[in-house]
């Protein structure tokens, strides 16, 4: 134990040292400096070439991160970082047609390839800040001019586009500044918790790998543009997590994990909660290792609340993102269905990034302004089954000329429309127990011996492009077989949910009243962004599952050293 204490004290120093160094001496207002250089750039570059620059935006993302973990019972060195990153957005020509216009046939490389990541001065040195802004503005301006030339040619050589809306829309300038605040994590306390919970798994020979971790991210965005917007706003993202994995005799790797999200340290779980979940995860893993492999199946199923949240995020949410209604290669599942019934009448869906919490749980999809400086807004996407709206940015789409505050990105990427907090609301909700009974009834009605309950889902992916099957796959972690004849539920493994969106939504027949948030990180064209999805458990009359890919590895030849007596 002495050795552990020494190790912890030594490593806990790093974040403290590091923050004290780089916060010192902040005497200039970064927004003032950014605005000053932006004005100079507009003056110098607006009419420097034949094609005028009409829009310039500077965004600086400041990220402070800390993480600590225990893996297989041993502490990993905590890591911390504190960096600023710069994004410069340049638009040339006019709102009607500018350099950001899609280059049809250009694929991912021409339209969505990541920009360079620019590390930005951490100190209050106005000259250095201005020089970094100047350098990147010159680069982005040059690239914007190059791309605009390609856009003009692309328009000439391709057929007329289906969506003739502009490339950019006017917006009211926004001004907002909030005081800086930073996460205060009791590192010593958390190190003790991680070590205690992480050591619990040592007693179980079937646990091949285990990890318990905590991580914090403080993100502050500084943004100015030539329209007069001036913003400084922050978000705090804290996560804790437990994961365990093992291997079945047939070589299938099996994972169980639990994650916790918070916006402040006091909202993280306590030791007792973590330990209780650790015990549950071990039991679930043991059951999974011994569980039978399910054969491909079509039949009734319940997706538990969080699993359903992932399901809606992947299959529905990505298809109502604005740019997908405009992109020539996109499947445009819902583009022409505004005003039509696309979901059961008892379901409504809205995306509301302005909600910070749901039932006391912090939501990761909460933000005040999007990455074009538009205030976050609640958007009713589906009202009683009828499609009403899309998630939009300042790049208009047909019949939706304005942004509703869903322009999001990770630094170093171009913005696109993304989800924030996707909320699924049901007018036809029963208790979960009743939903289970309905599942059994549905099995009997269809003559199926059993249905499935998807208790937990790792994530999934959906393909929205026309040149690939516009299908989805969701990866369940914990699945139960529920028998119609009242035999006990049985854990099963080795399946993925597959399907196509329009078919699967028509199969939702009832929901529970147990609305619960799923918090995660979504990766798409504009990088990784924090998101949430709140959903009740849903009963579907029919879901298709297929066999999961599995590696063909044998379990380890020798027993774990701890258990090799």
């Amino acid at each position, binding site marked *: 134990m002495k050795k552990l204490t020494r190790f912890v004290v030594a490593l806990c120093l790093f974040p403290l*040292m590091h923050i004290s*160094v780089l916060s010192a001496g902040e005497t200039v207002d970064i927004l003032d400096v950014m605005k000053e250089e932006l004005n100079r750039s507009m003056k110098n570059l607006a009419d420097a070439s034949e094609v005028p620059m009409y829009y310039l935006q500077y965004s600086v993302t400041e990220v402070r991160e800390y993480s600590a973990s225990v893996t*297989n019972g*041993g502490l990993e060195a905590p890591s911390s970082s504190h*960096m600023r990153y710069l994004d410069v957005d340049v638009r040339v020509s006019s709102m009607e047609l500018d350099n950001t216009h899609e280059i049809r046939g250009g694929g991912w490389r021409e339209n969505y390839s990541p920009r360079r990541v620019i590390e930005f001065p951490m*100190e209050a040195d106005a000259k250095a800040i201005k*020089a970094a802004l100047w350098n990147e503005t010159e680069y982005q301006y040059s*690239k914007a001019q190059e791309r605009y030339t390609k856009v003009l040619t692309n328009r000439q050589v391709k057929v007329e586009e289906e969506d003739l809306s502009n490339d950019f829309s006017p917006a009211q300038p926004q001004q907002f500044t909030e005081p800086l605040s930073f996460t205060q994590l009791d590192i010593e306390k958390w190190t003790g918790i991680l070590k205690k919970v992480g050591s619990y798994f040592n007693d179980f020979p079937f646990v091949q790998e285990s990890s318990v971790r905590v991580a914090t991210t403080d993100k502050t965005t500084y943004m100015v543009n030539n329209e007069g917007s001036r913003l400084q706003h922050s978000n705090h993202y804290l996560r804790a997590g437990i994961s365990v994995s093992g291997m079945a005799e047939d070589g299938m790797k099996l994972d169980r994990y639990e994650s916790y999200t918070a916006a402040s340290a006091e909202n993280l779980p306590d030791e007792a909660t973590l330990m209780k979940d650790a015990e549950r995860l071990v039991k679930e893993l043991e059951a999974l290792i011994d569980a039978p492999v399910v054969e491909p199946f079509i039949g009734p199923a319940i997706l538990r609340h969080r699993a359903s949240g992932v399901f809606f995020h992947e299959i529905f949410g990505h298809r109502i993102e604005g740019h997908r209604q405009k992109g020539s290669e996109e499947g445009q599942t819902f583009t022409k269905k505004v005003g039509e019934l696309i979901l059961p009448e008892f379901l409504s869906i809205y995306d509301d990034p302005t909600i910070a919490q749901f039932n006391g749980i912090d939501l990761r999809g909460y933000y005040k302004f999007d990455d074009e400086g538009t205030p976050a807004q609640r958007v009713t996407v589906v009202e009683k089954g009828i499609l009403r709206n899309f998630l939009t940015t300042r790049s208009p789409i047909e019949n939706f000329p304005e942004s509703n505050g869903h322009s999001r990105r990770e630094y170093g990427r171009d913005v696109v429309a993304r989800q924030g907090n996707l909320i699924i609301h049901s007018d036809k909700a029963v208790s979960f127990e009743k939903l289970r009974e309905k599942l059994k009834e549905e099995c009997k009605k269809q003559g199926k011996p059993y249905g499935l309950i998807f208790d937990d889902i790792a994530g999934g992916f959906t393909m929205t492009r026309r040149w690939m099957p516009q299908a989805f796959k969701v990866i369940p972690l914990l699945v139960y077989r529920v028998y119609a004849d009242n035999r006990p539920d049985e854990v099963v493994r080795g399946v993925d949910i597959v399907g196509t969106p329009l078919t699967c939504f028509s199969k939702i027949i009832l929901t529970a009243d147990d609305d619960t948030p799923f918090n995660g990180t979504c990766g798409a064209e504009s990088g990784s962004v924090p998101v949430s999805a709140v959903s009740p458990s849903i009963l579907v009359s029919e879901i298709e599952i297929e066999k999961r890919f599995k590696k063909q590895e044998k379990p380890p030849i*020798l027993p*774990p050293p701890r258990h090799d007596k």
Partner: protein
Amino acid sequence: MKATIKLLLINLIILTTANISSGAEIDSPVFRAMIDELDRSMSRLAIEDMPKPYFVSYRIQDNESISISARYGALIQSQREVHRFLYIELRVGDPSQDNSNFIGTWRDMYNMPKGLVEEDEYNSLRHQIWLNTDKAYKNALENLARKKSYFQAHPTTTEVPDFSTAESFVHLSEPIILETDAKTWETEVRQAAEALDEFSSLQDWNVSYNAMAINKRYINSEGSQHLKGAVYHALTISATAQAEDGQRLTGYLQYLSRDDEEPPQNDELIGEIKRMAADLEAVAAAPKLDEYAGPVLFSDYASMQLISQLFVRQLSPVRKPLASDEWISQELKTGKLAGRVNRRVLPGFVTITDEPDRKSYLGHKLAGYQVVDDEGVKCRNLTLVEEGRLITVPIGRLPVKKIPISNGHARTLYNQWNVPGITNLFVKPDKPKTMKKLVKELRSLCRDFGNEYGLLVKLLENPELSSEYMWTDMDLDEQPMLTAPVIMYRVYADDGRMEPVRGLVFDEATIRNLRDIVAMGNDEQVYNLRQPIALKQFKYPAAIITPSILTEEMELKGGGVREPLPLSVNPFTLER
């Protein structure tokens, strides 16, 4: 702030008391976990009817680093990191033919070491070693099968075994500790960046400092054990400017120092930086040349770069691995000098030695000093070139026909490949000349060629640094054998006057240019560097001690990357 300092002191005290003696080190949880799992693997790791491992080695490498960087005049990063990695070498078959030296799948090209818990916790470490050894064993069996089937399809007479014998060697030094003061270096890095404020034609500049303490703990199934450690301090200052035709020029200073010798600081450093910036500005404003053929004098950093790129980089790898796929085979390169043992590669007045046992020279700690190599073999001093003839090459336990036994020069790269490399390389001419005489000889050669002038090159391009400033993508894997001159002067044959010039790249320089060396200086200097090998972008720390070098004839052609000039003025220029 007081609290931070107090904690820092506690930290230093803790780390100091943790500096246990070598005898105790072998009983440490880290070594015990390695030894116990190695014993178990050698005695019991087996699949029925399949070969058991005949050789296993483990390396646990602890890296602790401080990274500080500044752009323009302000810090952009100050970070401390601690990482622990596990390297496993597991062989099945027998030394004449085993699973090694064969690339069965593309994954074998990028078999990075596995991260381990940094806590010295016996059970956790052993658990992770166990899981990774199991995977390594199964991969080794499959790779051996792939290799055997490759030989069935491509019948070959293999005269050289895959693994040479080596005496076991035990060397346990003290674990080394990173004692660098981050605060001091934050100030140094910031001041270094600020020193470039006054140079009006510079567009962008960066300063980075990285101090890394590396402790390598190694054991193998033949009884070798070692613990060796070193601290490397790398300081890089780079700046970019453009000529009026848009040619981008990136100048830089690079320092690598070892253990308690830190890179230059304060006035000494500032002076060097200002000289570099002045040279860069002068070259950016200099006339552009379209072509050149004739004598070239390499001095300062360029003399080391000539030896590093044309000689050292071409010494290894010595033997090309076999590959199951042709496209993989094309990715693999061997050093062009590796097969020229006993042949003339340099003029007769040149001797080159490699001396791993030299700790310091000319008052500088040498980056390549080591007692034992990364395969656990005792390092030996080598005479590589004698009277211009290549006598031997550095080699590890992968033998070649003419050198069947390791001379203790294996370096483990980050993809876990063992590749031979130099340690401290000394270039020694028989009759060294003063710089004045070298310039005189350059002018004389120009007259012989009928040239109006010759070239003096002080700095060659570093593509990694240049690419950071370029607007266009640069393929770092496809670089010429000798990179382009950056700081370059023409020296007129008639009166010896010097003028900066730019715009030339070497026209297919090869190892044959080494034979055209006609004289060397008496101005030898120690250059510690991260030496690249002829395989991807892997590098290792080494020292090259060389004087200025005069070559009789080289050909250069017009080249260099041209990019749009800025349309507005750098804010620094406005402030001046």
